[in-house]
């Protein structure tokens, strides 16, 4: 029996590293990537703390070998970099040897350029090229084109759970035999739009975020991109591929409670975890590690804790949120946490939940706060978003 859908490659860029190896080294050395805004031209520069990637846009242009006339948003550049690493990591040389698709997730899309040239586009022609790269789909189109993918290309935007749904759709397409191989993940850059949006919601922390802590004060935003290569059993067999892990479970449910807030009892999250376990055909007790959504907002962490107790009772498995490392990277979050989940399985290590001190009074759940060695068969990863979206993925050892 198939263990699920094979993951054969990964690529990532985040504020804790420009590639897979750098991310892993930061995770195990507890090196977080949160600092005051340096690059974005905003009144919040040097005030609000975020997870910013070191590369400037110009450096990214050079790295990707783009022409001066390119109309890439930062979202697309980060995405392309991570997707290319994933394809390389999967040792793919001829992308169209098999029916290959791309599903990318984003919430920011080309907003970073649109906000930058809000007025100047009307006055001068040179920045009008970004009008065509504003829509979310343009990011995926560019990544697909750079990889030579022409067939099934799509983009998902369900706010902060987006890339979980991209991974889920990819796995379902392969299972259904619609496609042989699919690059799945997400990308979001920081923008004034999201920084100010989350600020008006009053859920940004002024300090380093403290997931699952009683005294947490909100989230740090971050930017990142990550992609996985999923391949059918047939491709794995034909190409004698090394399987990094399997996507064994996935589910999506809606909280149907509020446009932005999660319900007190975490009903949507509970449903998503239960459905994912059912699809993976495993019992709650078989989960060895949970990479929680854990944004460090008062609302999310309380709701997610309730959901964890709903699903796992008194025996909540070892869990941590890695958001204190990277910040909340919105549509990319589930993809970078998928990479971290698989790294956890491969290296038999649980990455710590940084900055935690005091358990939440109501739930008393205590995350793992130190790098912990442990053999891991199954990891469950949660991602929740505006619009009541709750998604859960389960990754299993190859």
């Amino acid at each position, binding site marked *: 029996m198939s263990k699920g859908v094979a993951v054969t490659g990964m690529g990532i860029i985040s504020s804790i590293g420009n590639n897979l190896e750098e991310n892993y080294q930061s995770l195990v050395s507890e090196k977080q990537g949160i600092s005051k805004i340096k690059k974005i031209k905003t009144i919040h520069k040097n005030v609000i703390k975020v997870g910013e990637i070191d590369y400037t846009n110009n450096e990214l242009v050079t790295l990707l070998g783009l022409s001066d006339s390119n109309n890439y948003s930062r979202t697309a550049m980060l995405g392309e970099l991570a997707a290319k690493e994933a394809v390389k990591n999967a040792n793919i040389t001829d992308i169209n040897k098999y029916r290959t698709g791309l599903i990318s997730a984003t919430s920011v899309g080309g907003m970073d350029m649109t906000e930058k040239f*809000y007025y100047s586009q*009307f006055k001068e022609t040179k920045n*009008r090229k970004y009008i065509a790269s504003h829509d979310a789909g343009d990011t995926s189109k560019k990544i697909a084109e750079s990889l030579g993918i022409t067939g099934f290309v799509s*983009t998902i*935007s369900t706010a902060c759970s987006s890339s979980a749904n991209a991974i889920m759709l990819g796995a379902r397409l392969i299972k259904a035999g619609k496609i042989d191989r699919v690059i799945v993940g997400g990308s979001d850059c920081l923008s004034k739009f999201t920084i100010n*949006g989350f600020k008006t919601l009053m859920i940004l922390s002024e300090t380093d975020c403290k997931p699952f802590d009683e005294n947490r004060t909100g989230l740090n935003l971050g930017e990142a991109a990550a992609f996985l290569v999923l391949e059918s059993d047939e491709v794995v067999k034909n190409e004698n591929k090394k399987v990094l892990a399997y996507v064994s479970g996935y589910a999506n449910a809606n909280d149907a409670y509020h*446009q932005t807030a999660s319900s007190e009892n975490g009903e949507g999250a509970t449903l998503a975890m239960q459905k994912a376990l059912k699809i993976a055909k495993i019992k709650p007790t078989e989960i060895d590690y949970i990479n929680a959504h854990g944004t460090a907002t008062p609302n999310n962490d309380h709701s997610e804790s309730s959901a964890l107790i709903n699903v796992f009772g008194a025996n909540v498995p070892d869990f941590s949120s890695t958001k204190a490392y990277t910040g909340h990277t919105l549509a990319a979050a589930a993809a970078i946490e998928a990479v971290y989940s698989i790294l956890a399985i491969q290296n038999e290590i649980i990455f710590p939940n940084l900055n935690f001190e005091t358990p939440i009074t109501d739930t008393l759940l205590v995350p793992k706060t130190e790098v912990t060695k442990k053999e891991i068969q199954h990891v469950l990863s949660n991602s929740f978003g505006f619009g*009541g979206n709750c998604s859960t993925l389960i990754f299993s050892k190859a």
Partner: protein
Amino acid sequence: MAHCYINGIGCVSAQDTSDYKTFLENQFELTENVVHVHKPNYRDYIKPAMSRRMANGVKNGVVAATLALREAGIENPEAIITGTGMGCTIDSGKFLKNIVENDEQFLTPTSFIQSTHNTVGGQIALGLKCKAYNVTYVHNATSFETSLIDALLMIKDNETNILVGGIDEIGDYSLSLHQLVGYVKEQDTLANGLLNSNSSGVVYGEGAQFFALENQKKTTTYAELVDVEIYDSIAKNDVEAKLIQFLKTNNLDVSDLDLVVLGNNGDIDFDPIYNDLQNSLLKDTQQIYYKQLSGEYLTVSSFGLWIASQICKTQDVPEFLKLNSKKVTTIKNILLYNQYKGESHSFTLLCSC
């Protein structure tokens, strides 16, 4: 293998599409270059307290979704899948304007909250208290088709009913940018009809179309949704081959087609892609188009599916849709083909029941 039937539909468009008879009697070819929807009576569908915060696109989506579910007699679907090319452009434009004009100060969260691409799907779920699967696709002109592909996967995977829709709205700021770069036709080019505009760009439109899909046939069934395929790009001379291949996957030949629904939008730069098919591969097939009634938006192919569904059920092809004089009495197999700016190609196959 489970079959997928269209059992309920809802449409908010530039025409009065509250019911098909009204549409047939009152339809008109658009003559403006920017066309908003014919507004339904929102109060009949949405509580004023909720409606107040909703932008037009969200309201249109909720209305179309309600109509589709009502017709199919579904109270709580097992999945809500939406497609939108540009997302909630009214609220994102509003929030962006406030950021820029007020130098990032004195901002309120309402328009930010409503600006995410999945607002329509989220609001429908909220209204129905529907805790099921909920996803939004935002991929240019195949946003709606990806939603259909997802729904077909679910039906084949034993789900029983699914709500699927395409929504796009006109936002002032996006419109002004799109006018700046010539995406929108000049008004005076439309005097002799959309297909004779002899100009680049499109009639800028908006709309919301929803479909209740089920694995069972009902008295309300319009058609069977057989298959959907998308291609992000197709080499210029390869569209014919891809079309033939799509039909072949479904054990059909071009001669088996009783009707093709084409996405001609009067853009002289990209309509030749349709014209080439019309004049060669599909020359003996009955052809219709529909964007003269709806304008162009990234999920307008859902309006095409609304029309095709109606034709399938009534077995009558209205004159005002026709692109050629070919006539077929019994309409069984319908193929829809759409592309935008020579990219984001989609093939959708319907079959009458």
